[in-house]
């Protein structure tokens, strides 16, 4: 095993641990909706939400880094350049996350001054980490970019996947600079802030997970390089084509010019189309291999990714992306429902697939099967679908009663939050959140236990 793959396993461990922290704070955040005075003035809802969302961003990022450090030496046939720096950065990253978590848990907030901004909370939604930690993330990402690019140069070899990855590193790093607030005008500030949130998530991360999935497909299903690379180029072109200007759907109500309604609505409406192509591709691959593979969990999670991405981002997104609908739905639990499903489909399923690839290769078994992963797969998917349905119900109740009937007043918001449809939706979310948490426990158990040794089926080795 390469040294960078050992580092990758550390990243995976940290990612899975933070996945658990994210679930804990997700459940806590769900409880506030049912018991609004819970932990009042001890640990308020806003802090729980920050912990939930920030750990989501960090664990996925760690999962991506782990996946790239895993595949980089395999792809280029040599150890990653600058490993000592990469290993140092891992510990810096973990220490920074731990310190920020302690500050969020015990200090929580400070006065409106520079000290708070640098040491407690940057005050920027989804990237609340204090400025020193935000700078730390830039350093970690810069070292990561150096590792990838320097390894490519030293190896004197570039594959199509590596080209896409290297080019993606530029916006991945550049767009994160938007994490540093600079404007006191709220509209201008939000305009650029959405570059960070949307461009990271719907552009650079999509490309990153596309590269990772291309490598996983070659690994798990024996798909040929030419096929995955050609498909990767098409996917990247389509996702970026619709995704970049799809940014406009965040510009509807923040004080930007009216033409964003047309641009945002039009390009967002195009976003489900490449996702449909992914579904067709997933079924083609699954059928070509007659559902046979030597790594069943990874295979099922890859397939779940294609479907989850289509349903979460495509169906849930299209329901509320046209401006006339979005006027009522934005900022309600409806959006939360879409966010949960889209993130889960696009990224979580993919990262879990990579975890199973690592598990198979570290345990040295020919075939990874068993029963526990099926329970984990079932509970996580069932829990997620239940949660998003509950949130959708609650969000539609908010849009219907609080926005369309009540006219978006504070009173309307309050009464919509007490509406039985909303409350039952939130209870459903809580219940299915617990199911999801149970799935996580099974997933961790399965990842940590040694697999049974089962001979691999002969049909699998054939590339598609």
């Amino acid at each position, binding site marked *: 095993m390469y040294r960078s793959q050992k580092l990758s396993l550390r990243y995976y461990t940290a990612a899975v641990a933070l996945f658990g922290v994210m679930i804990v704070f997700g459940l806590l955040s769900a409880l506030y909706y049912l018991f609004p005075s819970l932990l009042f003035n001890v640990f308020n809802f806003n802090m729980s939400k920050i912990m939930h969302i920030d750990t989501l961003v960090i664990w996925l990022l760690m999962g991506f880094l782990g996946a790239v450090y895993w595949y980089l030496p395999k792809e280029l046939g040599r150890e990653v350049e600058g490993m000592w720096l990469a290993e140092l950065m891992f510990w810096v990253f973990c220490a920074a996350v731990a310190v920020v978590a302690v500050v969020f848990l015990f200090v929580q907030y400070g006065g409106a001054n520079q000290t708070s901004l640098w040491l407690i909370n940057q005050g920027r939604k989804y990237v609340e980490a204090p400025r020193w930690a935000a700078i730390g993330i830039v350093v970690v990402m810069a070292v990561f970019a150096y590792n990838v690019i320097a390894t490519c140069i030293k190896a004197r070899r570039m594959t199509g996947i590596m080209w896409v990855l290297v080019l993606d590193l530029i916006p991945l790093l550049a767009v994160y600079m938007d994490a540093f607030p600079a404007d006191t005008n709220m509209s201008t500030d939000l305009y650029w802030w959405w570059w960070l949130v949307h461009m990271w998530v719907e552009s650079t991360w999509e490309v990153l997970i596309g590269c990772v999935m291309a490598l996983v497909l070659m690994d798990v299903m024996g798909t*040929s390089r*030419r*096929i995955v690379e*050609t*498909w990767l180029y098409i996917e990247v072109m389509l996702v970026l084509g619709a995704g970049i200007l799809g940014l406009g759907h965040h510009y509807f109500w923040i004080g930007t010019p009216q033409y964003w309604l*047309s641009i945002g*609505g*039009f390009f967002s*409406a195009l976003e*489900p*189309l490449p996702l*449909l*192509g992914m*579904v*067709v*591709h997933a*079924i*083609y691959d*699954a*059928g*070509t291999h007659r559902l046979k593979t030597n790594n069943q969990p990874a295979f099922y999670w890859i397939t779940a990714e294609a479907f989850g991405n*289509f*349903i979460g981002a*495509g*169906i*849930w997104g*299209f*329901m*509320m992306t*046209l401006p*006339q*609908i979005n006027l*009522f*739905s934005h900022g309600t639990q409806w959006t939360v429902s879409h966010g949960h499903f889209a993130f889960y489909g696009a990224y979580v399923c993919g990262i879990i697939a990579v975890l199973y690839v690592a598990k198979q290769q570290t345990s040295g078994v020919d075939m990874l099967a068993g029963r526990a992963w099926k329970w984990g797969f079932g509970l996580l998917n069932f829990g997620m679908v239940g949660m998003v349905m509950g949130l959708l119900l609650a969000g*539609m109740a908010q*849009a*219907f*009663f609080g926005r*369309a*009937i009540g006219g978006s007043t504070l009173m309307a918001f309050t009464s919509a939050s007490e509406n039985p449809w909303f409350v039952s939706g939130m209870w459903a979310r809580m219940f299915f959140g617990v199911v999801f948490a149970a799935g996580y426990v099974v997933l961790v158990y399965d990842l940590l236990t040694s697999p049974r040794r089962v001979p691999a089926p002969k049909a699998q080795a054939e*590339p*598609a």
Partner: protein
Amino acid sequence: MTPTALIETAVLLGLLVLAGGGYGGLYSAGRIWSRPGLIRAGGVCWIAAFALALTIAIRSPLDPGWKLLVLVSAVVYAIIPPMTWRYLERLHDEQESQR
């Protein structure tokens, strides 16, 4: 937009994409496992998708531009699965012939 029209339109939009996805999924499954019945079921899904798009165009209070976009989307949903399929087959055939 009335509160009822809001929910109706959103649900119809969601169902439109779901039916489009159903068509893509069933068409692909029918092709890969040579089951004409599944391909036909996929066709029914696409008809449902187009019917939903027409319903949105006729009944919903969306602006005409969005209605047109929805109708065009429904047509594009018909094209994507067979086009993607043909492309994947060609790619795999070329790969086979090179080996």
